């Protein structure tokens, strides 16, 4: 089940909300756990047991760390090995099963990637590592821990909520009309981002893939559309998750902060998928020594972290593209730390153009079919198929306004305008807000009803 399906907002969510607010406070976590498991079960029935197993194993290992302090370190190693091992097992199953098939002459099929495994594995590890470090209290109630890990709003595509983010709210959270209304607004905005923007850009990307000999103009339309699709897809999902969290009394961390307005790569990664970069920073980069080491070691630390970031995004045979994508950012970040950062500080517009170009080319690498596909896509961008073709001109014209809306929507401008309006004409926003929420829901529903199944991109990871 996807948030951006008709089933989720029209049947699943109202039913869960009805039961949730009917249930006494003590039982709310249990209800959320059951609802979350059902939510996951409808999306990936085969791997629901794996999710439950992850919750049980991580809960028990944290319990063991607290119970046997002498064995804390080996238990932590065991936790990391089990979690990362499972992730690697599934993410690269087509690689190692392919190798085995080659050796043994067998025809084994690779395992499909369990839904959201990259997200919930990192969440589980944040708990066990924080318990090891003494930064999180041990959760003695297994159901409360399972509720945290399986919580449906953020279960399958983030944000990566750390246990400490919701530790207090798991025990006691307040529900208010304001929280409900803000949550509903955030959810509606996220749904509109996903359905009205990301899906339309996805459609353009498909057109590009179907074109026989696309021109450079088509190539650039694709590259820009894909860059916008990824952002609105993922940021839209994060908005929906954060909004749902608010409705149920949780405060999830922000995941995006207008990354495309950044004027350096360092700033970009402070604004893009913030919960993932934060995770890598706290659990990999700092333990490696961070920046408080020799210059070569610092650069190596950065490269390790960004290669791992690339790996986290990838799976299967196209893994090299993701590793290169991560490494590209690693190298650029190193360059910014060494000298480029100073240039961008003096010439911010130049830095901004650089970020946008790197992002676009980065996502071409990200979205291409293997390395050969990357070369082919890049060749198209540089005119392999000619400069322009009627199809490209047509789609530029037809989707021009949508592109413009999306580009403006990727900046803080709409939020600033809304805030100004709230400050100067609060009464108007009291009328406008429900109207906009209604319009967003109705239009998104209209698009959903008209479309076929449309999965989120980030489920691959």
């Amino acid at each position, binding site marked *: 089940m996807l948030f951006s399906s008709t089933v989720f907002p029209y049947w699943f969510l109202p039913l869960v909300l009805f039961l949730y607010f009917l249930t006494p406070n003590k039982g709310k976590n249990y209800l959320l756990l059951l609802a979350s498991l059902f939510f996951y079960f409808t999306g990936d029935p085969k791997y629901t047991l794996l999710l439950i197993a992850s919750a049980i194993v991580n809960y028990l290992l944290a319990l063991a760390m607290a119970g046997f302090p002498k064995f804390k370190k080996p238990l932590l190693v065991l936790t990391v090995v089990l979690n990362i091992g499972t992730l690697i097992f599934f993410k690269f199953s087509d690689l190692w099963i392919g190798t085995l098939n080659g050796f043994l002459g067998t025809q084994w099929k690779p395992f499909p990637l369990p839904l959201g495994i990259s997200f919930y594995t990192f969440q589980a590890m944040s708990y066990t590592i924080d318990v090891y470090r003494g930064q999180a209290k041990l959760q003695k109630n297994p159901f409360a821990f399972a509720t945290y890990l399986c919580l449906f709003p953020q279960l399958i595509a983030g944000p990566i909520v750390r246990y400490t983010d919701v530790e207090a709210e798991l025990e006691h959270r307040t529900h208010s009309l304001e929280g409900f209304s803000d949550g509903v607004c955030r959810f509606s905005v996220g749904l509109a981002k996903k359905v009205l923007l990301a899906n339309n850009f996805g459609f353009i990307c498909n057109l590009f893939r179907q074109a026989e000999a696309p021109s450079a103009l088509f190539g650039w339309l694709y590259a820009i559309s894909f860059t916008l699709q990824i952002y609105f897809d993922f940021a839209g999902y994060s908005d929906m998750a954060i909004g749902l969290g608010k409705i149920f009394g949780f405060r999830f961390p922000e995941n995006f902060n207008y990354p495309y307005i950044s004027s350096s790569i360092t700033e970009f990664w402070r604004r893009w998928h913030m919960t993932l970069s934060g995770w890598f920073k706290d659990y990999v980069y700092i333990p490696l020594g961070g920046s408080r080491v020799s210059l070569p070691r610092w650069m190596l630390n950065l490269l390790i972290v960004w290669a791992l970031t690339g790996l986290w995004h990838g799976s299967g045979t196209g893994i090299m593209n993701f590793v290169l994508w991560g490494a590209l950012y690693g190298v650029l970040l190193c360059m910014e730390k060494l000298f480029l950062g100073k240039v961008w500080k003096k010439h911010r517009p130049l830095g901004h153009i650089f970020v946008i170009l790197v992002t676009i080319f980065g996502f071409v690498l990200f979205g291409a079919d293997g390395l050969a596909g990357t070369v082919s896509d890049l060749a198209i961008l540089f005119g392999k198929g000619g400069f322009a073709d009627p*199809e490209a001109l047509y789609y530029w014209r*037809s989707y021009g306004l949508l592109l413009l809306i999306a580009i403006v929507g990727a900046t803080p401008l709409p939020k600033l305008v809304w805030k100004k309006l709230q400050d100067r004409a609060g009464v108007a926003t009291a009328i406008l807000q429900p109207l906009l929420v209604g319009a967003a829901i109705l239009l998104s529903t209209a698009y959903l009803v*008209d479309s076929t199944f449309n999965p989120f991109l980030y489920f691959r990871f």
Partner: protein
Amino acid sequence: MEKKNMTITDKIRHIATAVVFGGIILLFGIGALIAPDREYSVFERRKLEQMPVYAECEDLASYFSAWETYLTDQFLWRDELRFLKSGFAHGVLRQYDVNGYYSEQGSQAQLLYPMNDENFTANVELMEDIRQQYFANSAAYYGVIPDKSYYMDAPLGLDYDKIHSLFGAKLQAKKIPLAENLTLADYYATDIHWKQESLQKVYNAFGTVMNPYLPAWQFETKTAGSFYGVLYGQAAMPAKKDEMCYLTNQAMEGYKVTLLNIAMDGSVTESEEMLYDLEAFAGDDAYDLYLGGENPMIRIVNPNATTEKKLVLFRDSFGRSIAPLLAEGYSEIVLVDLRWIRSIALPLFAEYLSGDQNTDVLFLYSAQVLNSMMLG
């Protein structure tokens, strides 16, 4: 005081937001459960997903997926929501087409792009095979009916020069010039088809190129009623209803129309059909008025013909509306629809297809059909 006012405003904002959201969710959620399921969507021209049965699904995942499709297909006011989407995309986002459909000069059309060279080539080669096999001694003709976008300044469309070059190179047949004898007004606004009553120039072109026995255009126009064509529901754009007319004259009253069917023993049987079926007009597809709708083999016999000439017309649905007009210049017309009959089955109808010098063979197809499928 000001703070208190703000709080009240905020409260109103929050309550109104919650009520609007809850209202929409409950209206559609409960409404869809109460409303009876529909089996077929006339607008979309397709069967709608029915409640899934677990035993018929491959596994649990496909069962849940089938539920999603079912609930989306049966969503309350599905058609109206599709119109909302289309209106927003065209009107607000200024998209030229939505799902490949667009509206221009008051007429709706489908974007036919890219051109499917493979389909075109295969179809023309099939026509030439049939001509050589059955009509080597007959006069052969072809006509390509342009899709509406040809007259609508559509930014993307089929390459008609390329299409005619292909026909010229691969099919030994004379071209009937159609494109220059039609205008956008000769097509229905909400349907892909041409209007029978607007075919005078086309009729004359057939007379000039193909059959000198074709009498002058003398028909009485009758109205069947108003209708929404296939494009209306698929484009989901507001439009006025079209009016469908049909042409008659005294000669037509004597025509005998039969459907040719294959019996169990392999013999061909004939069953009566109407030249204009007003009951079929009231069905899902108004164009079924002409010769009762889609049938693979139809025969029109003109007992009062002044010539022995016979016409074998390989055609799509457009052919059903022109055939009654052409019949006056022939003793018999056999209509073959290669979308519904495989060419390997044609020998079963050998007695109807036998071509001699007194037989004309005409391949009359719309570019839309030639582009979208491989015939027979």
